[in-house]
């Protein structure tokens, strides 16, 4: 028995290797009236998510995926609703992968922090979970069942629901609905820019905010970007810069303390610049925003 326990402790340590050290509370599924729940024994981790979703796993891993739990709900008539609970290391990472797959055209419903219902599919965000429900059956009953089971799962997970506070800082005028995103790595193709929040605007441009650990990190980031674009400018000399990026075009930006706000695909648009400055002012007042603990 002692040996068995030691072994299980060892395997638990092994599991932690692949979970990036995130806390791993047990994940359970709720019982739902009139639906028989089968919790599947397979729990997928970063080490084997490929086995289940193949190349799509890379995106999940890039948002610090922790584990995936699977359950099936079946009713008396044989309809099956499959439930997948993707757990990420933090709510902002779950938000990141959720928004990377979300389209503004979907039919959004009130569930968790945000969610949408499509034919045979209900996906939603709840705290550090990205929840996916689907069925290969179709019809109104299935759509209704997805919502009933989804709401029960949402309640059962008991997460603090909400979108990242940073999204609320973006100017609302002209925002395209459901276009907000969090890019966790290699923003616009550069490792040194690491992560960013973005929102699309009418007029075809995008505003972004990069949040550094502190002012020095943002200054260093700007220095690296200017070095890449071969611009001989000291970023400390002015809070307003335009990066002459050969790949992404001109990127106007404002540095405001530990934040950098900027524009993509809108360097020639006056309204974009006005909104960027508005965004920078909001950021300057937003000392309440949490640090980037999730990168």
């Amino acid at each position, binding site marked *: 028995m002692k*040996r*068995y326990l*030691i*072994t*299980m402790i*060892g*395997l638990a340590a*092994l*599991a932690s*290797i*692949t979970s990036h050290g995130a806390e791993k509370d047990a994940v359970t599924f709720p019982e739902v009236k009139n639906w028989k729940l089968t919790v*599947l024994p*397979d729990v997928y*981790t*970063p*080490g*084997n998510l*490929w*086995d*289940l*979703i*193949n*190349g*799509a796993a*890379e*995106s999940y891993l*890039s948002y610090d995926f922790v584990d995936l739990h*699977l359950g099936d709900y079946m009713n008396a008539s044989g309809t099956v609703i499959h439930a997948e609970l993707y757990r990420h290391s933090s709510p902002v990472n779950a938000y990141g992968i959720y928004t*990377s*797959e*979300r*389209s503004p055209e979907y039919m959004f419903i009130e569930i968790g922090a945000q969610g949408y219902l499509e034919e045979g599919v209900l996906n939603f965000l709840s705290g550090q979970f990205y929840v996916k429900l689907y069925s*290969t059956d179709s019809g109104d009953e299935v759509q209704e069942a997805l919502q009933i089971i989804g709401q029960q799962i949402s309640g059962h997970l008991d997460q603090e629901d909400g979108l990242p506070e940073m999204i609320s800082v973006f100017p609302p005028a002209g925002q395209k609905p459901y276009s907000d995103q969090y*890019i966790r*790595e*290699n923003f*616009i*193709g*550069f*490792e040194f820019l690491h992560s960013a929040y973005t929102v699309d605007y009418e007029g075809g441009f995008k505003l972004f905010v990069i949040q550094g650990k502190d002012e020095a990190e943002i200054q260093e980031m700007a220095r690296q970007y200017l070095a890449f674009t071969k611009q001989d400018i000291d970023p400390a000399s002015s809070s307003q810069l335009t990066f002459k990026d050969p*790949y*992404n075009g001109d990127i106007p930006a404002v540095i405001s303390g530990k934040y950098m706000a900027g524009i993509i695909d809108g360097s020639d648009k006056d309204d974009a610049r006005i909104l960027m400055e508005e965004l920078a002012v909001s950021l300057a007042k937003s000392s309440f925003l949490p640090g980037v603990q999730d990168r």
Partner: protein
Amino acid sequence: MTKFNRRNFLKSSLFGASGMLVSGSVKASTARSETAMIIRTLGKTGIELPILSMGVMRADTPNIVKAAYDSGIKLFDTAHGYQRGKNEEMLGEFFKDRPRDSFIIGTKVIPAGIDRRTGKLGPDFTKEGFLEMANTSLTRLQMDYVDIFYHHLAQSRETLLNDGMLAALTQLKQEGKAKHVGVSTHKNQAEVIRAAIEGGVHEVILVAINFTMKDDKDLMDAIEEGAAAGLGFIAMKTMAGGFHDEEKKIPVNGVAALKWVFQNPHIATAIPGFTKFEELHTDLEILNGLEMTEEERGNLLAGGGRSGFFCSGCTGCQHQCRKGLPVSDLMRAYMYTYAYGNLEKGREILDEYGVDADPCRGCPGCTVTCSSGFAVAERIAKVSRLKDVPEDFIT
């Protein structure tokens, strides 16, 4: 298969560092950049591809696709399911105004009704459903056809040779919606490849292959057999997870990993997933030649000179163990268990060699010196504990 046999530098690439190959047997790419690339032919499809292609799955900006396209990369690989279709839509937007013969698109569909855990097709799978998903992909891509259409995630002969699936792929070709059809696999790969040979429908195999698999003789044999039957091979997962160590502090040398893959002449191209311009730049270095430097070889063999996961199979440890343990195989079991989290495979190897839960008991001290620097005794002690775990906890 490789079109170039001589190289010199004629013009710098987009990044100013690529080689170009020209001679009688050298075929200059008609790429956007004037950089020639090593070209290989994709089996019986006859498609000629630069050895470097792009897996688009994680690219969240079209500008990185543009940079790849401008640098001469021709094949762009996506899938119906990547980002719930947004990945295909992004490629569709990018390519809609570009000459159709200037790029090759590969996309793949995981059939609805598949049990993704077992890879088996369930009763919900229908040919019609699969074709509908294929049509959705074409709509998102804004294209009349794709160059390579894959059955995504085939894990067994049974799934690959499913009548409905073969009929769907055949119909896509007949209707001109797919120039060529293939299959993507990364589990039971040898079985899937041999099934493709047997079925005679598939033309392309998207195969997971990297330097950690050099001792997988069954897979290498299957690739050889497939190539002889005219199958074209495209490599994925070439970076083996990107790190040599458990703590993810020792990165795999990407160029070395690609070079290793192309030592196999049957691999026509690879689809690393670039998400930053620097990665693209680095991977383009492979155009300078496929010969590995000592440093690159060292990185692959020993995790940058430090202990990694992957046993090089040098057999130097043979006969070193006082107890006659199969050290190299136990290192493989350790890799499956700790690098891939595949406890089942680790246990399988222990069972195969009759290794118990404490194989080093009674040994006064380890006499094995591993050329890759593995702490052999420690790893054996860790992995052999799997024997103490009830089987139903593992499988």
